[in-house]
C-alpha cells in the first residue's frame, strides 16, 4: 500500500510541476468553452430558440403588404424590423450592417398586382360557371414579385425554409383575396368568411415530437454542445503532459531502472492512469461547473445535468480512460518529447475536427460523417449527447461504450507491445 501511495504521490508531484501541461489541461478548456460558446450561441439560438430576425421594407401602397407583414408578425416565428424609408438598392448594405441575416422587400405594386390577379381568376371562374360578370376590359397588373435577401453565411436550406414560410402566408393572402373577389362578383357580400375559414384556417395539422427515449424535452444549445465538446478535447490534450512524461521516463532510463527493482511495472502504469483519470474528472468538474454557474450569468444557456447520473459517471470515466490510453500509446511510440507533443497535439486537433468537436457532425458532408466514426472524440461526444439531449439510456450508450472500450483496448495493447519490444516490461 505504501508502494502504491508513493507511486501515486510521485505522479502527482510530476503533474503539479508541469505548469504548461496543467495550463493546457485546465485553462484551455475553460477559455475554449467561454469563447466558442459565445461565438456559436447566436447561430444555435437562430436554429433553436429565438424568432428569426427579419428586416422588412414594405413599399406597397395597398393593404395586402401590411397584411403579409402582420401575418408574419403574429406567426411568432419572426422578429420583424420594418424600415420602409429605405430603398431597395440600399437593402443589401443595411442587411449586412444590421446583422439581420434575412430581409424581405415588398414592392409598390404588391396589392394592386394581387388584386388584379384575383380579379382575373374570378372572371375565369364566372365565365366557366356561365354566370354574369362585369366583362369590361380593365387594366391588368402583372403578379408582383417579392424580393428575399439573405446573408451569404446563411445555409441554403435555412433560406429556403424561411422562403417556404413566407410563401405559405402568401397563399393565405392570395386565396383570401380570390374568395373575396368571387363573392363580390356574385354579389354575395361579406358571406365569404365561412368559406375562407374552412379553406384557409382548417388545414391538416402536423404534430411535432422530439425523438427521445425519455420525456426529456431538452434540445441542443451552444452550451450543451461546447461544454462537453471542449472538455473532451482538453481531456485528450493530456497527451502533451502524459505522453511526454512517458517518453522522458523511457528515454532517461527510469523505466529500465524500475525493472531492476522489486516492483511491478503495472503499478507504475496504474498510478499514472489513476492520476490522469482524476485529472480528466476534474476537467469535467471545472468546465461543467462553468456551464452550470458562469455561462448563465453572461446570458448564455445553462448546462443541464442529465438525470441518469450513473450513466453520466460511466461516460466521464470511459472518456477519461480513452484519453489516458491514447496518451500512454503516444508516449510509448514517440521517440522524443517533441514527437509526442507535436504528433499528439496535431492528432487531437484532427480527431476533434472529424469527430464533431469544432463543428457538429450533422453539418458535415456524408463522407466526413462516416469518417467521424474513426475519431474517439466523436464517440465521447456522442456519449454526452445521448446523456444531455436524449435522456440517455444504457441501451443507447451501448454502442458508445463498446467503441470506446475497443479503442482503449487497442491503445493499451499497443503500449504494452511497444514497451515489451523495448524490454521495459
Amino acid at each position, binding site marked *: 500500500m*505504501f508502494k502504491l501511495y508513493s*507511486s501515486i504521490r510521485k505522479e502527482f508531484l510530476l503533474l503539479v510541476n*508541469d505548469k504548461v501541461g496543467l495550463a493546457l489541461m485546465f485553462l484551455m478548456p475553460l477559455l475554449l468553452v467561454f469563447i466558442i460558446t459565445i461565438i456559436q450561441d447566436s447561430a444555435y439560438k437562430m436554429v433553436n430558440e429565438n424568432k428569426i430576425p427579419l428586416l422588412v421594407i414594405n413599399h406597397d401602397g395597398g393593404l395586402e403588404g401590411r397584411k403579409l407583414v402582420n401575418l408574419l408578425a403574429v406567426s411568432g416565428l419572426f422578429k420583424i424590423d420594418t424600415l420602409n424609408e429605405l430603398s431597395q438598392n440600399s437593402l443589401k448594405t443595411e442587411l449586412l450592417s444590421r446583422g439581420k441575416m434575412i430581409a424581405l422587400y415588398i414592392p409598390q405594386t404588391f396589392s394592386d398586382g394581387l388584386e388584379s390577379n384575383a380579379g382575373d381568376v374570378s372572371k375565369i371562374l364566372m365565365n366557366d360557371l356561365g354566370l354574369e360578370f362585369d366583362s369590361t376590359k380593365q387594366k391588368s397588373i402583372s403578379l408582383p414579385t417579392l424580393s428575399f435577401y439573405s446573408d451569404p453565411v446563411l445555409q441554403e436550406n435555412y433560406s429556403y425554409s424561411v422562403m417556404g414560410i413566407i410563401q405559405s402566408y402568401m397563399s393565405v393572402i392570395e386565396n383570401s383575396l380570390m374568395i373575396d373577389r368571387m363573392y363580390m362578383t356574385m354579389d354575395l357580400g361579406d358571406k365569404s368568411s365561412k368559406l375562407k375559414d374552412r379553406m384557409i384556417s382548417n388545414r391538416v395539422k402536423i404534430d411535432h415530437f422530439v425523438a427521445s427515449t425519455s420525456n426529456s424535452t431538452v434540445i441542443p444549445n451552444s452550451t450543451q454542445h461546447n461544454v462537453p465538446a471542449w472538455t473532451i478535447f482538453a481531456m485528450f490534450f493530456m497527451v502533451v503532459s502524459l505522453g511526454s512524461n512517458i517518453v522522458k521516463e523511457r528515454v532517461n532510463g527510469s523505466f529500465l531502472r524500475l*525493472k531492476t527493482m*522489486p516492483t511491478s511495472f503495472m503499478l507504475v502504469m496504474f498510478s499514472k492512469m489513476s492520476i490522469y483519470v482524476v485529472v480528466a474528472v476534474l476537467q469535467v468538474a471545472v468546465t461543467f461547473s462553468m456551464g452550470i454557474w458562469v455561462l448563465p450569468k453572461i446570458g448564455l444557456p445553462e448546462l443541464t445535468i442529465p438525470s441518469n447520473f450513473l450513466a453520466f459517471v460511466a461516460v466521464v470515466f470511459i472518456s477519461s480512460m480513452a484519453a489516458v490510453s491514447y496518451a500512454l500509446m503516444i508516449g510509448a511510440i514517440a521517440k522524443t518529447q517533441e514527437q509526442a507533443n507535436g504528433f499528439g497535439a496535431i492528432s487531437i486537433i484532427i480527431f476533434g475536427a472529424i469527430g464533431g468537436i469544432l463543428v457538429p457532425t450533422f453539418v458535415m458532408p456524408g463522407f466526413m460523417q462516416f469518417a467521424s466514426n474513426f475519431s474517439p472524440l466523436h464517440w465521447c461526444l456522442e456519449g454526452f449527447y445521448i446523456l444531455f439531449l436524449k435522456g440517455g439510456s444504457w441501451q443507447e450508450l451501448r454502442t458508445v461504450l463498446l467503441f470506446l472500450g475497443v479503442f482503449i483496448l487497442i491503445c493499451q495493447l499497443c503500449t504494452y507491445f511497444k514497451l515489451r519490444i523495448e524490454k521495459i516490461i
Partner: protein
Amino acid sequence: MSDLPCIHIDHTSYKYKSASENSLSDVSLTINQSDVFGLLGPNGAGKTTLISILCGIMAPSSGRVNYYNNRAEISDVNRRNFIGFVPQEYAFYQELTPRQNLDYFGAMYNLPKTKLVSRREELLEVLGLSKVADKKVETFSGGMKRRVNLAIGIIHEPGILFLDEPTVGVDVQSKNAIIRYLQEINNLGTTIVYTSHHMSEAEEFCNRIALIDNGRVIAKGVLADLLVENGVGNLQTLFIKLTGEAYRD
C-alpha cells in the same frame, strides 16, 4: 569479508534482434563477494549489455548467470531486492527534489517508511546533498546529479551494486566523493561491479577486472597479476595493448 563467489556468469551470449553478430559471446566470469570488479572495454565492447543481463533487464540468449551459488532462497524475483543499479543516464525525475526521488525509489525497493526516512537522510548527508535536498534536481550540476543517481541505487543497501560509468562528466570533487563512498560500502560488504572509461580511476578503485572487446572477454583476473603477466606498468597501457589503438565509435 567473505571471498566467496557471488556472481557466476557461465558461457553467456547475447544477440540483439537487429544485429548481425553477437554483442556478447560466450562470456564466463566469476565475481567474488569482496570484489570491486571492473568491466572495462572500448565503446561497443558489450559492457552495458553484460550489466543489463546481470541486473535482469535482459535475459541472455544463451548461457546463465547464478547469484550466490544459486542459493535456494534467492529466486529471480527477490534477486531484485539485493541488487542495486546505477545506470549511466540520470535515471530519475529531474523535476523532483532529491528527497522526493529517494522517497519514491526507496518505496519501490519495499523499504518501510521509517527505515526509508533514516536511510534517505543518511545518504543525503554522506553524499553532500542535504542542503539541496528540497531543490529540484534539474537545477543541479552534473556532479550533484551523479550523486543523486548513486543515492537512488544504494538506498536499500544492496548486496551487489552495478555501476555503469558512475563518474562520467563530473568534477574532481564529486568523483572523489563518489569513489570514496563506494570504497566505504565495499568495505562494509557490498560487491561492486563497475564500468568506466577512466583507466586511472579504475586502476585505483578495482581489485579485479575483465577486459571485454567485441563481446568477448580478452583478459580477466586480479589487476596486479594482469599487469605483471602482460609486462605493463598501468591499466591504460594494458588496455591499449590488448584492444589496439584504432578508433572505436
